[in-house]
């Protein structure tokens, strides 16, 4: 038997749930304008948002037709004004939780995106895994790509995911969460992929290097190889190395990576040990791989990989003078006191970095020709 005071408490709880729930403010999904792509541009007197909205075609049995996509822009002296101008143009309150990609123009990248990143952190709607890109064209050109029928934001996101999975792009730390983390860390450096339009489709044209939220340079697609190899995770990638007078192509996967920091006599040092697993895919000429040839290919691979990584380290240290490969993290873990007392940005460019590459080569894989058998 429930006693009277307990009954009263239960009833008052249920009533307060009704009154305090705030359910009268609820907006269902169809009462919001769903943004799928947000582009930020720097104008002469402020900022410009260029946003792609999904416009569902309607319920009932015709709903299989899909959505259309419309574009609106809002300009203002600051982000709040630009957003207000955008709000005036949207049919319903803007919903940012479905944004597939956030892009910033080159102008904005060189101006600095730190403030905008902090704004994105404050807006709870944004997913922290949304990717940020730099575009080297105008946002309107991106809109032309979709023709109003496909979502450019979704296309960019899907293209990037595919590249990461297939090994075409081996750097996937350009999401909002990682950028905020980088800005909060001592390194303060990060890379953002550069998206461009090539032959009517989305392509990655390289990486923009950021230091403390401001772009300090661009790594071209070829130049970024070493950095991508260093940051490679699970995906495999085709890689070539010379053998004899020919070229052999292997499928390369990073197995182990160790960055061992050292600090002696006030000098920072790093020993990078990377281990790759390579499977011979094909060669330009018919070659029978014996032990000697295998060893030669292995050495050539190791040498080439070491060169690529060394170039990436050189670019980071000497060209851009920013630690976008995040060497500060293992150093801070091992030498927290020393790290706190030093100016990392000043000391990092002079660090000694040694690279050791080991490749476990498998030539039994899939050579396309075995010379002793003639057909």
């Amino acid at each position: 038997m429930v006693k009277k005071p307990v009954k009263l408490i239960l009833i008052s709880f249920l009533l307060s749930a009704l009154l305090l729930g705030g359910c009268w403010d609820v907006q269902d999904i169809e009462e919001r304008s769903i943004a799928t792509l947000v582009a930020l541009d720097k104008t002469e007197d402020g900022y410009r948002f260029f946003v792609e909205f999904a416009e569902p075609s309607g319920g009932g049995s015709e709903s299989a037709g899909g959505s259309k996509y419309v574009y609106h822009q809002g300009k203002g002296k600051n982000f709040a004004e630009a957003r207000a101008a955008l709000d005036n143009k949207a049919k319903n309150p803007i919903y940012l939780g479905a944004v597939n990609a956030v892009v910033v123009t080159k102008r904005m990248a060189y101006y600095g995106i730190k403030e905008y990143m902090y704004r994105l952190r404050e807006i709870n709607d944004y997913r922290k895994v949304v990717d940020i890109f730099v575009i080297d064209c105008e946002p309107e050109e991106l809109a032309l790509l979709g023709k109003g029928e496909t979502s450019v934001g979704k296309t960019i996101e899907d293209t990037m995911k595919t590249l990461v999975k297939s090994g075409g792009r081996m750097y996937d730390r350009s999401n909002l969460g990682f950028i905020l983390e980088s800005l909060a860390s001592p390194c303060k450096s990060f890379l953002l992929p550069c998206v461009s339009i090539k032959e009517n489709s989305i392509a990655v044209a390289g990486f923009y290097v950021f230091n403390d939220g401001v772009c300090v340079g661009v790594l071209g697609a070829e130049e970024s190889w070493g950095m991508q190899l260093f940051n490679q995770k699970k995906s495999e990638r085709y890689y070539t190395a010379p053998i004899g007078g020919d070229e052999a192509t292997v499928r390369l996967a990073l197995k182990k990576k160790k960055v061992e920091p050292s600090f002696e006599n006030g000098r920072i040092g790093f020993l990078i040990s990377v281990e790759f697993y390579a499977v011979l895919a094909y060669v330009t000429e018919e070659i029978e791989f014996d032990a000697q040839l295998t060893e030669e290919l292995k050495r050539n691979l190791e040498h080439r990989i070491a060169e690529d990584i060394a170039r990436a380290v050189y670019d980071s240290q000497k060209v851009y003078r920013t630690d976008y490969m995040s060497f500060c993290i293992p150093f801070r873990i091992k030498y927290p006191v020393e790290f706190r007392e030093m100016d990392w940005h000043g000391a990092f460019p002079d660090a000694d970095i040694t690279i050791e590459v080991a490749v476990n080569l498998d030539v039994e894989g899939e050579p396309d020709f075995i010379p002793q058998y003639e057909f």
Partner: protein
Amino acid sequence: MLNKHRYEELIDNLRAGNKAVAVRRLVLAGDGAWLLYIKQLVDGTSLSEFVIKPVMEYCGGTPGRPRARKIVDSTIFAADCSVESDPFAIHDHILKGMAVLLIGNDEEYVVVNLKKVEHRAVSPQDLAYSVRGPKDSFVENLDVNLSLIRGRLKDPKLKIDMFELGRRSKTGVAAIYIEDIANPDTVNRIEAKLRAIDTDAILGAGEIQNFLTSTKYELFARVRTSENPAWVCEALLEGKVAILSDGGHIAIIAPCTFMESFYASDDKYENKFFGFFSKLLRYLAVMVTLCSTAIYIALVSFHTDALPSSYAILLSQLRKNVLFPAMLEVFIVEFILELVRESLLRVPSKIGTAIGIVGAIIIGNASVSAGIFDALVLILVCASLLASFAIPDYFSMYPIRILKFFVIFMTGIMGFYGFVLAISMILTNLVSVDSFGVPYFAPFAPYNRYDFKRAFVFSRDTSALRIQYMRDKDDTRSTYAHEHLGKVRKRNRDENNEDG
């Protein structure tokens, strides 16, 4: 001592009060005798052949005064007869379908059971279909039902305690258990509840169920009902008590737990892996029934950012022309489908199909085409409805159907927080009640490893012990049970020690 005249007076009073009482006057060795019975309840042919004829033949040729004791011992041919002496019980015997033979100048009288009550033949089950198990079911006659149980369990320890419930109906109720298995404490509790029933009539098992589980704010039934004799025998072998009543075709099984609603007799006949799969499917089905529409409301109205962007766009597309907010839409559709479900139960079978088609076409197709309701809501509500039919014990889903609305309401006002709150309240209720001393949410709470395994995988050859949470007198089932017993008892002891 009642003499002939007092008997005549008694008979006159009986006939005055109940015109249905038939009186057959006999003359036995010069003494008057009266055979009293109700024609509709007694088999007239048997009465003539086995009572009247032998009594008259005997008393015609035998010297001395006829005596009730002598007639019962060596004259009448009926199997079930006795000598009684309480004159105030005569009317009761007649109303129960007995024939009463009053002999002048003998204070004792004969009561003969020649009941002939019309009842259904044993037929296949209606409420829970079994694919491989026995298909017979109980009927409205207690004797037939008891024979269905006795025919399966020829155990000398099978005990049947008879009760008479209802001041006016005097319904025969049998409490059945196996004496050396069932926990005597449980049996006593149940029988005490039966004895405490004070009402004018008991016309079916459902009424007894209400008396057994009479707590004001109870939602979950703490007994299980079944029309399957094989299932009832299984329950008796687990140490439970089965209650059968005259006039009802459903047996009540007590105690029971919430998880037992998900067990079907087919689980034991099939391969244990398939049994496991079926049970898992049912556990998921109840979660779908309870939660699917509430989660939809939470995602559409409150937590849209939990959805991938393509799903958010699709949902927006589906709901573009819908008139109602998500919560109201779900309530309306759920209500309509509950109406369809109820109407299909009550409607004559010949127009049931038509109602189903009308419901499907009008509610389903037309409303989606017109954009009044969202197709996804209809799919989820129908999935919830179908999932509720996957549970073998149909009646155990009644509270789930009610609680579904509560969960929808809480989610509709507070999003996932309200959803979690509602589920927590339901779980709190489930773990805090018991069924005649057995925790209602066993074997999940309190946790028992042996019973927990059995809740998913049951195989007779691997289940050497009975359910541990029943605390039966004898919990061993097979000859090699004692090997298991040592390990299980030790584990139970350790678990109890950990719980303090």
